[in-house]
């Protein structure tokens, strides 16, 4: 084995590290360690001169291992690995000691912290001595995509991909495309027709030779990994007996656009839904608006309308979250009602008016100007709807403690519209299991990062878009669908999928086939070969969490870059 020549670099991080840690002492302690030929402090190791210093030392001093004592590896490990590559060294001959987050940011005792930084650096030096050169793997990227759900998000994602020339399988459980948007009349705040928005997209999807639409179908099975999934598409059973019949298609990526379900208003008793004939849900009003006639159960034209916000949303008993679209939809109803019945009076009972989007505040103002009566109720003190007396000129009376006036008031109403919120579809758990993604406590699918990676999931190659991830409006759903498509197109353009060299490997000769690891793997990355009775790790799916390595009773699963020897050396370094 060649002689060890280790370079150690201690970053000051401006004053972030140096204000607590005596960096020069860390350099001095490191320079006397076995194999260390050069040790230097520097103000900012991640800066270009810092990286160049490493490259130059590797070349001039013939270094074959590098340790950087600086911030968290999540921050800059990639940066320094690149520097090693530039200098012609295998990038895995690198180790980082975190002396910022684990030292200077959490301690203020300079002496003790410096000792800890020295120990962490020593651990890294001992560990890097045991590193092995590794190479990243590369697999082909299949250009086809599976889109689940034919609503506005699914249609948009499918069109984006197809227009770039790539095949799409669009799976829709019902017998027609359009999703929930197909049940809507006009859209807020610009009052465009939802049908117009949809018809154009549906026609283009239908006409696209690249899109294969599978109606009344659903995903039965998904296996494989990013770039190389195999999907089984079969007839929709709608909760009936599951089948494994269907058509198998190979796809490189999956976009989940399964949408939402509206809240069931009959779960709330005090609004009288189901008992009072003229208490309707927002979707029931949409149906009337689409039919072009708003009427009460007995056929009369209502004069007093009351719209109740946050039905099922922002409540302790049902859903704590805001459904985001109801406020503007309610204003849209006020507008549509007044256009259709000019003599109508519209009361709008809200908790808070959420008018955050483009054009929304203006739309809210327009509704005020059109004399919609806005009444604020407390979310812990809901309105109560009851039948009016024979002398009243209205069908119902709504009693509520109005917050802006402090008065307990009674509002006349002939028709009450309940703004039912959005909730995760009851079968979302099933979908989550099929495509191996996670759900939050409300059932919405979880994104990889809520701010920086909103359409990716923890399963590479599986994306989420639209209201299956959380309530959102049409522009947000469309933006997400296009974002997912863009992510997929980027992968397709590269043609190859690079897989990190760090993953678990089973020594199959010594595997007893106990299958403990199969159940344990959180990424479903371990397959069991029935023929050889051995387990095998799919390196593309493995995230190198190490659960199987620790659990294997025979100790025959090894994690690359996390070998026992490397970890023990690191511990020895820290403790010595």
């Amino acid at each position, binding site marked *: 084995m060649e002689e060890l020549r280790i370079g150690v670099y201690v970053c000051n991080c401006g004053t972030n590290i140096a204000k607590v840690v005596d960096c020069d002492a860390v350099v001095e302690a490191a320079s006397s360690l076995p194999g260390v030929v050069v040790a230097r402090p520097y103000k900012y190791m991640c800066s270009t001169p810092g990286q160049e210093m490493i490259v130059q030392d590797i070349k001039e001093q013939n270094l074959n291992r590098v340790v950087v004592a600086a911030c968290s590896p999540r921050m800059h490990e990639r940066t320094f690995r690149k520097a090693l590559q530039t200098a012609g060294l295998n990038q895995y001959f690198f180790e980082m000691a975190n002396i910022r987050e684990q030292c200077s940011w959490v301690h203020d005792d300079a002496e003790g912290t410096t000792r800890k930084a020295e120990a962490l650096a020593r651990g890294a030096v001992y560990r890097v001595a045991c590193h092995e050169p590794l190479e990243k793997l590369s697999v082909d990227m299949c250009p086809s995509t599976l889109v689940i759900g034919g609503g506005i998000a699914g249609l948009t994602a499918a069109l984006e991909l197809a227009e770039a020339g790539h095949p799409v399988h669009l799976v829709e459980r019902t017998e027609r495309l359009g999703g929930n948007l197909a049940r809507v009349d006009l859209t807020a705040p610009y009052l465009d027709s939802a049908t117009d928005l949809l018809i154009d997209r549906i026609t283009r999807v239908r006409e696209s030779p690249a899109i294969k639409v599978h109606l009344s179908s659903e995903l039965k099975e998904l296996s494989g990994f990013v770039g190389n999934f195999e999907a089984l598409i079969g007839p929709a059973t709608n909760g009936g007996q599951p089948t494994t019949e269907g058509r198998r298609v190979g796809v490189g990526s999956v976009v989940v656009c399964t949408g939402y379900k509206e809240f069931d208003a009959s779960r709330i008793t005090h609004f009288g839904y189901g008992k009072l004939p003229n208490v309707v849900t927002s979707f029931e009003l949409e149906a009337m608006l689409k039919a072009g006639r708003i009427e009460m159960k007995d056929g009369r034209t209502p004069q007093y309308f009351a719209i109740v916000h946050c039905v099922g949303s922002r409540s302790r008993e049902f859903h704590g979250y805001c459904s985001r679209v109801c406020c503007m939809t309610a204003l849209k109803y006020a507008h549509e009602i007044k256009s259709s019945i000019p003599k109508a009076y519209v009361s709008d009972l809200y908790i808070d008016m959420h008018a955050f989007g483009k054009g929304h505040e203006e739309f809210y103002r327009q509704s005020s100007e059109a004399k919609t009566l*806005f009444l604020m109720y407390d979310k812990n003190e809901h309105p109560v709807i009851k039948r009016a007396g024979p002398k009243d000129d209205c069908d119902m009376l709504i009693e509520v403690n*109005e917050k802006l006036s402090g008065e307990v008031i009674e*509002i006349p109403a002939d028709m009450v519209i309940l703004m039912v919120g959005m909730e995760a579809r009851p079968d979302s758990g099933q979908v989550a299991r099929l495509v191996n993604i996670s759900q939050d406590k409300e059932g919405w699918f979880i994104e990889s990062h809520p701010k920086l990676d909103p359409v990716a999931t923890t399963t590479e190659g599986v994306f989420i878009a639209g209201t299956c991830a959380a309530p959102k409006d049409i522009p947000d759903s469309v933006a997400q669908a296009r974002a997912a498509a863009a992510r997929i197109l980027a992968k397709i353009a590269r043609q190859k999928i690079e897989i990190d060299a760090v993953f678990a490997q089973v020594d199959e000769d010594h595997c007893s086939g106990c299958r403990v690891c199969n159940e344990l793997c959180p990424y479903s990355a371990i397959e069991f070969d029935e023929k050889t009775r051995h387990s095998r790790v799919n390196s593309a799916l493995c995230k190198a969490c190490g659960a199987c390595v620790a659990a294997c009773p025979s100790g025959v699963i090894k994690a690359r870059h996390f070998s026992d020897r490397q970890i023990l050396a690191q511990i020895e370094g820290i403790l010595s």
Partner: protein
Amino acid sequence: MAIRVNPKLIEDIEQYGAEEVSNCYHCGNCSAVCPHSADPFIFPRRSMRTLQMGLESKLRSSLEPWLCYYCGQCSEQCPREAEPGETMMSLRRWLTSRYDFTAISHLFYRSWKAEVVAIVAMALLTGLGFALYGFSSGDINTYDGPTAFLQSPAVHVFDWTMAGVLTLLLLVNSARMWWFTVGSRTDIRVPLLSYVKRAVSLPSHFFTQKRYAQCGEKGPWLVHLVLMLSYVMMFTLIMFFLHEVQAGPGINWNVHAFGYIASVGLIGATVVMLRGRLKKSRPGNKHSHETDWIFLVLLLYVAVTGVTQHVLHRTGFDLAANIAYLAHMMGVVPMLVLEVPFGKWSHLAYRPLAMFFSELVADALRENARVTTQVGIGSPQPARV
């Protein structure tokens, strides 16, 4: 017991001038900026709310509109251009029509044409009456003395009769105001002693209008004060010294000096006010209801014709002076008869009364709070801004 919302009321009050009430989304900036808004009379936001919801009984019992002098800072601050100042003004008009037991002010505020027709009719009637009287007992070419066209003792009797009738009407309406805002309230009890203790506030507000002076700018208050004091001076001269005022052609400085001061004040203040409304010089002048114009034009007309007849008489044109006098009376009578009990001028009674009543109500509310805290039932409700 829940109060019934009446979404139709707002349409009714819009006819009194309020236009943008629905725009209000209750941020409360108006109440925060208002120099007069203080517990327990916090406005204009609360009035905007009560009006939006159409809580008629609440509105009718509210004194808050009268505590506002329309400096307009609220309307300037309003982020939604809901014009709270103009709403308060409209509510004053609406309240005037509620206090009025006849339906006349209700009619006038909603139809300026009806008001103009009434004024013209009353002017013609007055002209005809005085002409008949003048020709029957006097000489159109004589202004004063025993053969005068319009003799001051007769006019004096007429003036006092008219003043009596108008005062009676105004008293009835004021009593109604008391009943709506104080008497009928079940949540407070105002002890008789309170009325005595607070009585001084009536003349003090009437003669100084000191609350108006707290509105930031002093200009509008000064003009208003000049107009009011000039009017009071003229009113005193006419009601008590009519004979001396009319006697001539020499100038009796002991009487006429006051007359000249009052005339300059009346004409000057009216012209400034008209100019302000024409130029929309400040927020309070931006919106002028038809009744505002009618009132000011009548006032100016009366003042100018009054001065004209005086000048003509002193310069020896008795015939012309008598004609001008007739024209003057044709303005004075409709102005007083229609404006004092039924129109804008009624605020001469309602405003000081509102200050007086508001002090009574505030005392009673404080007493309620004190008793509640003492008994330990709970702390008084925090005021809603």
